[in-house]
């Protein structure tokens, strides 16, 4: 493309209000109870402390339900139940365990609309995503690992795979039900029992999941769910009864957990933060790259550990890509997550919103160019417009810190070597994207990028059969696929 600096007339497209869409809210009932207790030994039980905290919807700030706060005594009871259930569950023939998991998967599919609405109300993500991604993907993980349950002997040739025992699992708020599935399905398929703690702002679908466990007839104590904040999480992690801890969340907390488990003999897998580079070469199909950039950073409001939050553009196409990206972002519909046309929903919590606001302020202060399309944000609830920072350099804070919001930092590069250098110049290493028409370049880049996942000419694609996990401060251990299953087994 010729790069002449002659004054060309501005040719703008008009995206006005000629054809506005009417509101189209999803109408299925989420069936949310006014109060949720703990789930221990197959029963819902009141927390010993008698304490509850409110769960509010980021959509409008309204309270959805009271959630039980589990104390140390409740966590103790959960571990006792899990360890009592372990001998029988682990000795069950694999095919029998598989039956329970298949049943859970099917029940989740049967009630997918209800779960999608509950997930959207509780977490703020657009109904389009909870309906088309979160819930079906959660069911897919149960289906996938159900299939493995009777095939553990074939995981490694000539070796036997035995379960570890009780697994303590702590999951984040960005994909509440899906992360529950990522954790519970492989643990159970391998014959382990589980004590799981959902994130405090998003416990509702985990507690609704209890009704699915009941319907599936899962034996008591195999899955125990304790809700609460960081103290509850700490009790789950520090409990001596845990054979392994699996954690997904922030790098800061991950480091604490690693310290707490050091020397205890507990196995540990951590899936932490990221600051992924999405690299667009000059021969990339531009419109599809733009689509991938949008999927990469604005999926789930950017509350994604593998979000493509650093966009690296080859200088020769930087202007062309940026122009089309801005047009595309204008088409994103920001607002009520329950509306079927919403692309960008609510920010999960006021704390997260404040963090995003602070980092955006910092980006402006550091001199990056801010672009936000005109959007009418709802008056109530927590929202933030899609934001693109261009002219960002590697020393900017917005290029180094994980923002975990709908904020894209755009940098440029000249050669593949420079792109690689910039992409790997981060303390994280979870994911990366490469956009090019050239197959050999894809292979070269994917081998040299220090990240657990590299997507080529696509972004944010997941499959239960594909292992997922990080390098460096993005954590260790893999989830999904055979690799994910092996994290829950001991080979003898």
């Amino acid at each position, binding site marked *: 493309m010729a790069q002449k600096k002659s004054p060309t007339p501005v040719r703008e497209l008009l*995206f006005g209000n*000629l*054809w506005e869409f009417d509101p189209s809210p999803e109408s299925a009932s989420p069936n949310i109870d006014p109060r949720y207790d703990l789930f221990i030994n197959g029963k819902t039980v009141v927390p010993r402390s008698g304490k509850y905290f409110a769960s509010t919807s980021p959509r409008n700030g309204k309270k959805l339900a009271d959630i039980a706060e589990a104390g140390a005594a409740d966590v103790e009871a959960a571990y006792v139940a899990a360890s009592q259930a372990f001998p029988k569950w682990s000795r069950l023939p694999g095919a029998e365990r598989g039956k329970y998991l298949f049943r859970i998967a099917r029940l989740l599919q049967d009630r997918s609309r209800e779960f999608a609405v509950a997930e959207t109300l509780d977490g703020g993500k657009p109904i389009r995503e909870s309906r088309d991604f979160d819930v079906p993907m959660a069911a897919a993980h149960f289906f996938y690992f159900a299939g493995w349950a009777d095939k553990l002997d074939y995981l490694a040739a000539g070796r036997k795979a035995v379960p570890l025992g009780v697994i303590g699992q702590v999951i984040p708020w960005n994909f509440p039900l899906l992360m529950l599935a990522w954790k519970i399905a492989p643990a159970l398929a391998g014959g382990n029992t589980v004590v799981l703690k959902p994130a405090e702002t998003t416990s509702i679908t985990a507690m609704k999941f209890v009704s699915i466990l009941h319907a599936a007839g899962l034996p008591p104590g195999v899955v125990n769910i304790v809700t609460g904040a960081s103290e509850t999480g700490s009790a789950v992690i520090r409990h001596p009864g845990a054979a392994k801890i699996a954690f997904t969340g922030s790098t800061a907390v991950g480091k604490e957990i690693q310290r707490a488990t050091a020397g205890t003999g507990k196995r540990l897998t951590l899936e932490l933060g990221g600051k992924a580079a999405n690299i667009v070469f000059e021969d990339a*199909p531009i419109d599809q790259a733009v689509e*991938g950039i949008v999927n990469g950073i604005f999926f789930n409001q950017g509350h994604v550990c593998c979000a493509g939050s650093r966009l690296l553009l080859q200088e020769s196409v930087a202007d062309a890509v940026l122009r089309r990206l801005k047009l595309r972002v204008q088409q994103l519909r920001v607002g009520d997550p329950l509306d079927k046309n919403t692309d960008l929903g609510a920010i999960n919590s006021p704390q997260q919103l404040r963090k995003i606001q602070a980092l955006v302020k910092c980006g402006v202060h550091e001199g990056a160019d801010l672009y936000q399309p005109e959007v009418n944000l709802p008056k109530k609830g927590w929202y933030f417009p899609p934001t693109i920072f261009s002219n960002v350099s590697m020393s900017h804070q917005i290029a180094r810190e994980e923002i975990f919001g709908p904020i894209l930092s755009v940098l440029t590069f000249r050669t593949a070597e420079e792109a690689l250098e910039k992409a790997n110049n981060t303390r994280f290493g979870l994911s990366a994207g490469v956009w090019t028409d050239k197959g050999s370049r894809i292979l070269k880049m994917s081998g040299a990028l220090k990240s657990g996942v590299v997507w080529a*000419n696509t972004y944010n694609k997941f499959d239960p059969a594909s292992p997922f996990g990080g390098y460096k401060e993005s954590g260790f251990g893999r989830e999904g696929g055979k690799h994910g299953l092996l994290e829950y087994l001991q080979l003898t």
Partner: protein
Amino acid sequence: MTTSASHRLRSLLDEVGTVDQTGIEERVQKYATRSVKKHSKVFGLKLAVSMVDLTTLEGKDTPGKVLSLCQKAVHPHEDAAIPSVAAVCVYPSMVKHARRHLSGSAVRIASVATAFPSGQTPLATRLKEVRSAVGDGADEIDMVINRGAFLAGELDLVQDEISAVREACGKATLKVILETSELETYDNIRLASFLAMRVLRAGDFIKTSTGKTSANATLANNQVMLDAIRDHYFQTGVEIAMKPAGGIRAAKQAITFLVAVKETLGDRWLNNTRYRFGASSLLNDLILQLEKERTGRYQAPYALSEASGNY
């Protein structure tokens, strides 16, 4: 394809850029998830009616058939709130009959010339056909490109022929049919779009298909061409119009195509000087849905006048 042919295609591709198949097919799926209800649905349906090129292209067409088509084009339904369609589209021999019925109405007459649908006659013959259709009163000419020449890498020939037809059109609007199913790849569709657009005038169209092959307009083909129109507009300032044709039979499909226009080219393309549907049975489904929105009930199929063949 010979090596030199693929080389010529490749060098133009380097200039205009490629299309990723998986990516574009995924993109257009999102248009289908847009939920268009209530007022926005009625607006979209009426807009779609006003964009229809009501078509009959059959060996058995008669002046009588064309008369009934013209009547339906002007008054698609007894409800006067439903607008006229944009144009009727007929074979050149039927243009003069259509002209008799449509003089004084806003409905335009489009004619498929240039040895439609194959285009396999000498250029002189094709140009003569165009001039005769225009002379009989056609407002718009739908031509087919020389796909054989395109696939043989003779890109200049393809472009020169389009130029020649444009000259022969005089003041008539030109629609250039790429016949996407015979070009086979999205890359080729993008290339052919640029070849055509570079010799077209503002307000001329690029069009997907003849409707005479197995595969016709798809959302993805439509998107490749909309993206090309946008890029050409950015480069030159010339606004090219778009016409998907064939295979769009349901109102819901038409709405989805319009969502693609809204989100790719914006409001200035949401009218029948910039976007058309080449269709016949689509019109009845649009009316059916509009009547359902107005009365709350679906009408029986026989409540609507006949569809005009399968296009």
